[in-house]
């Protein structure tokens, strides 16, 4: 295996995903997608419903197969990556198991990997500490708020120490205040762990605030229309949300979503909108 491919967290080469191929209800969910996520990079996939952003994430996660094309996840096929637990995943629903305590929810992936009891407990507590929920380790998930549940889900996705985090609208069901707090948490966790992250979202400010690059997608057929660089640096905080560079990037993504590639005259248009 060449080092050239292993240093990419994700490498998609001409990925197609066609549902019901050859039938009258054929849908092209992904059309010729090329994307490289560098190691340690934070990438957001954004676009309207049906643009294939979730499908792309699911192809990376080996939850569905690509119809055509080559996908590499940390240098492996998605199937190998899944079998070797090279990625962790978080969904819009926290999907915590009600019958387990918070700690034992975080332990679940370790349990499935056959870790012994003491080790997985120590690991779970360490992760709960990281998401600042150590006090709630022995609570039941349904005793926690939505934001706290989502933090548990993030801790769980980090349990096996994967190199890549795949997140499918993880904050989509949270209120705005909680959502912004969670974004800060995620940036902090990313800084602490150095994970590569692929993040699906509907929210333009969220994508911009979190990402190094925002991948803009468009539906019918689902495809990548633009990739917007977000030059906000590595140290982002609440002030970043009010910085000019932030608004510039938000405008650039918005323009890209409207199909106007570039967005160089973005600032001028902000006033008009």
């Amino acid at each position, binding site marked *: 295996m060449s080092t050239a491919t292993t240093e990419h967290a994700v490498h998609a080469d001409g990925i197609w995903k066609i549902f019901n191929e050859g039938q009258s209800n054929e849908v092209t969910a992904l059309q010729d997608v090329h994307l490289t996520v560098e190691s340690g990079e934070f990438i957001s996939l954004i676009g309207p419903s049906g643009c294939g952003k979730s499908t792309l994430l699911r192809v990376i996660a080996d939850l569905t197969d690509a119809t055509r094309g080559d996908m590499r996840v940390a240098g492996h096929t998605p199937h190998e990556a899944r079998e070797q637990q090279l990625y962790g995943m978080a969904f819009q629903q926290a999907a915590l198991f009600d019958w387990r305590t918070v700690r034992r929810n975080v332990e679940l*992936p370790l349990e499935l990997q056959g870790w012994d009891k003491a080790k997985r407990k120590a690991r779970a507590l360490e992760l709960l500490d990281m998401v600042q*929920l150590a006090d709630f380790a022995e609570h039941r998930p349904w005793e926690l*708020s939505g934001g706290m549940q989502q933090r548990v889900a993030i801790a769980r996705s980090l349990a096996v120490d994967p190199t890549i985090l795949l997140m499918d609208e993880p904050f989509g069901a949270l*209120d705005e205040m909680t959502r912004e707090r969670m974004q800060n948490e995620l940036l902090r966790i990313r800084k602490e762990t150095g994970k590569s992250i692929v993040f699906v979202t509907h929210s333009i400010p969220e994508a911009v605030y979190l990402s190094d690059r925002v991948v803009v997608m468009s539906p019918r057929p689902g495809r990548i229309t633009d990739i917007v660089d977000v030059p906000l640096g590595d140290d982002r905080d609440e002030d970043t949300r009010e910085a000019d560079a932030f608004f510039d990037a938000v405008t650039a993504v918005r323009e890209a979503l409207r199909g106007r590639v570039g967005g160089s005259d973005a600032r001028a248009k902000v006033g008009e909108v």
Partner: protein
Amino acid sequence: MTDTAIADPHTSADGASVGAARSRTFARRARNGGISLLWALAGVGLVIVMWELVKALGNVIPLPLNTSDMTMPHVWTMFAAMGEPEVRGSENTVLDAVIAATFRSLLLAFGGFLIGVAVGLLLAVIMQRFLFAERGLLPFVIASQTVPLIALAPLIVGIGNQIEIGPIKWTTTYSVMFIAAYLAFFPLSVGALRGLQAPTPTSLELMRSYAATPNQTVRKLRFPSSIPYIVPALKVSAAASVVGTVVAEISTGVRGGIGRLLIEYARQITSQPAKVYVAVFGAIALGLVVAALVTALDVYLTRNLPKEKSA
């Protein structure tokens, strides 16, 4: 639950008060339990009062039912009948006989219930795992319950009596247990199948993302998710096993159980009308004991789940 209200995790006071909250919950449950018991006793009292009222009313005006002591003995006559010797000159009282018969039927019903639950769960797991099994088995599972028990009982006894594996000889007792199990497995297999299919797509994808094996998915996700479906199914199965036992005892003529006793005492209704009611009480007690056992099981199985309903 509002998100903003307790979104801050640094309220350790919250964590410390969990124990106190749990003991409060326990106290509340105990109090609710006491109140429920009072209501239940009040209900029994009401039935007794109604019974005697109807009888008294029957003496004054003509009612469309026979309220004579022959068909509706006084409640105190029933209690008195409990203390009478079972047969003339016997040491055993009617109550002794009814208790012994009830206990025996309880064992048979319990055995049938356990077998039914085991078979029902196994079928559910197989049907969940293999679509062709669900397609192939489910119609038979459903059809099995449309065969009248009365028709089935002699058949089972007839076939069963020919079974002899080494030292184990099939007896009619096994037939009774088999019939109880036959009725008990159905609600459970259907309920458990629904429960095993209940996990959300997200939970299933989560397990897939962990590269969990199908067995792991059943043990760690599908089975725990099915508990809310299995518990009500267990209640129906338990009731079915009791009915199955009593009916099977009657239709197979096996001695020693409450079903047979009911028939025997019913034949003596002209001489001792109160006696048959004692046997009826035995059958009721049988149902109550089984219901209590299943409720205890319910509390145990759902101890870690959110208490949404006050069942």
